[in-house]
């Protein structure tokens, strides 16, 4: 079985986001970028499936700016076998919408014919939580989102999902799209020798036109603003003062 893992280049999760003063967006020039944390978990899961003998090949795919090849090299250094970069824009501030990403991924999948797609549940920049579900719709495949456990068993997979009420287990037909949640695994770090080896692994470059996809956004960004800041509170010296204050404002 071939496993396809879409990986997104996003602002590093430790970076404090700065909204540009003119309301045109978030400042992404010269900030640290990394692989979306959920996608690291997806890559890790694919590698584990390969180590167990349940997968033969892992293909990582990224859509965005040319610099996303760094993200793909990280995936290759972790253990992916090959990578496909779809250069869809040369502007680091242009986010390609999940619908367009899903259409491009469908094009890749039509060519690659994987048995399983492992994506992240959510990109931590746009917080959409949509691409896996959209891709599954376009392909007419089953979907299993927010996975905390994945077991591939022949022509189906049994997936445990993190849902509002707790956990739900479902059985889905293969091929399938799984989106991964935080507790599925702990991703490994790439070792130095593997980082060196990754430089020689194949990385193909494509464009949206190769798949006949128009990436023009459906959502026009009118403006981007800072959330309302909370006003500074106060420190209280002890429990008695805290209780008195809470009573005073009617919070208890």
């Amino acid at each position, binding site marked *: 079985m071939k496993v396809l893992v879409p990986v997104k280049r996003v602002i590093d999760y430790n970076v404090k986001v700065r909204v540009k003063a003119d309301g045109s967006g978030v400042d992404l020039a010269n900030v640290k970028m990394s692989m979306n944390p959920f996608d690291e978990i997806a890559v890790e899961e694919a590698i584990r499936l390969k180590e167990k003998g349940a997968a033969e090949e892992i293909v990582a795919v990224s859509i965005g700016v040319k610099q996303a090849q760094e993200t793909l090299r990280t995936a290759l250094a972790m253990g992916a076998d090959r990578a496909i970069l779809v250069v869809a824009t040369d502007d680091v501030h242009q986010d390609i919408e999940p619908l367009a990403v899903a259409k491009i991924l469908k094009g890749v999948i039509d060519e690659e014919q994987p048995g399983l797609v492992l994506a992240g549940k959510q990109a931590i920049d746009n917080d959409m939580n949509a691409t896996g579900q959209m891709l599954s*719709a376009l392909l007419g495949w089953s979907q299993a989102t927010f996975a905390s456990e994945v077991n591939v068993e022949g022509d189906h997979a049994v997936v445990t999902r993190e849902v509002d009420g707790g956990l739900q287990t479902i059985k889905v037909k293969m091929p399938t799209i799984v989106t991964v949640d935080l507790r599925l695994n702990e991703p490994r770090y790439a070792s130095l020798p593997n980082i060196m080896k990754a430089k020689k692994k194949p990385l193909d470059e494509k464009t949206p036109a190769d798949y006949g996809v128009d990436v023009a956004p459906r959502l026009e960004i009118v403006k981007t603003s800072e959330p309302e800041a909370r006003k500074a509170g106060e420190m209280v010296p002890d429990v008695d003062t805290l209780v008195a204050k809470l009573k005073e404002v009617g919070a208890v």
Partner: protein
Amino acid sequence: MAVLLIGEVTNGELNVDATSKALTAATQLGEVTLLCAGASAAAAGETAATLAGVAKVLVAEDPSLGHRLAEPTAALVVGLAGDYKHILAPSTTDAKNVMPRIAALLDVMILSDVTAVVDADTFERPIYAGNAIQTVKSSDATKVMTIRTSTFDAAGDGNSAPIETIAAAENPGLSEWVEDKVAESDRPELTSAGVVVSGGRGVGSEEDFKIIEGLADKLGAAVGASRAAVDSGYAPNDWQVGQTGKVVAPDLYIAVGISGAIQHLAGMKDSKVIVAINKDEEAPIFQVADYGLVGDLFTVVPELTEKLG
């Protein structure tokens, strides 16, 4: 303009809190039809008919719609979509699972976690864990969106809207439900509770989480947790508050042994009053707290529990 709101139906019951908050957003857009779908949904439909502002209720009952599996639920909604300009649901995990699928089948973008309706085409939504708010204008023929319930007030009741029964779509048969593991609890539900007490890594163990639960029970509160507490096995996953957990906005949020990472703040910074208890006076949680208390939670929380009430 006609709006279709997908009610949150779990095991045949309507989640009134989540549904009625999304209803408030829906009524800003037009005349609302509320769909209740499930293996059993008639009772949910009757509850839905009482919600103020609902013009009509649709009830679809079919075994394939039990457990809200994405594929049959999306097939049902796509079959109805032609009549509506807007299709909404509260931002629950069920809706996040199914709504993007519906959007893609209609060849439109999804608007996730909408926090404000500006006009029929323009909406606000948080990005970057709530560190920025984006105003977006959709050019799609149908707007498919999930509504962040913590920012809308619940619609009232007292209505008696007409109820119509409709058939399910053909089940694509791609997935099957196996089991749910749901913790039973007498505490209020996290996303609708008036008071939430959350514990973090500082609590140190599952055993010591009882201290947090004790304070919560004294206040009639729900219990929350940071991701670190969940990952360490101190608390179950459905207690996680944050960017990738639940978003809450209670009247009172008490954060205990939580440092205040942006991913955690994303889930609670709209709470009315925030209290932070942490032994590290530099902890970033104090920057968003209305009342901060520097101290060891193992002495402060029992004392607070005792002195409240």
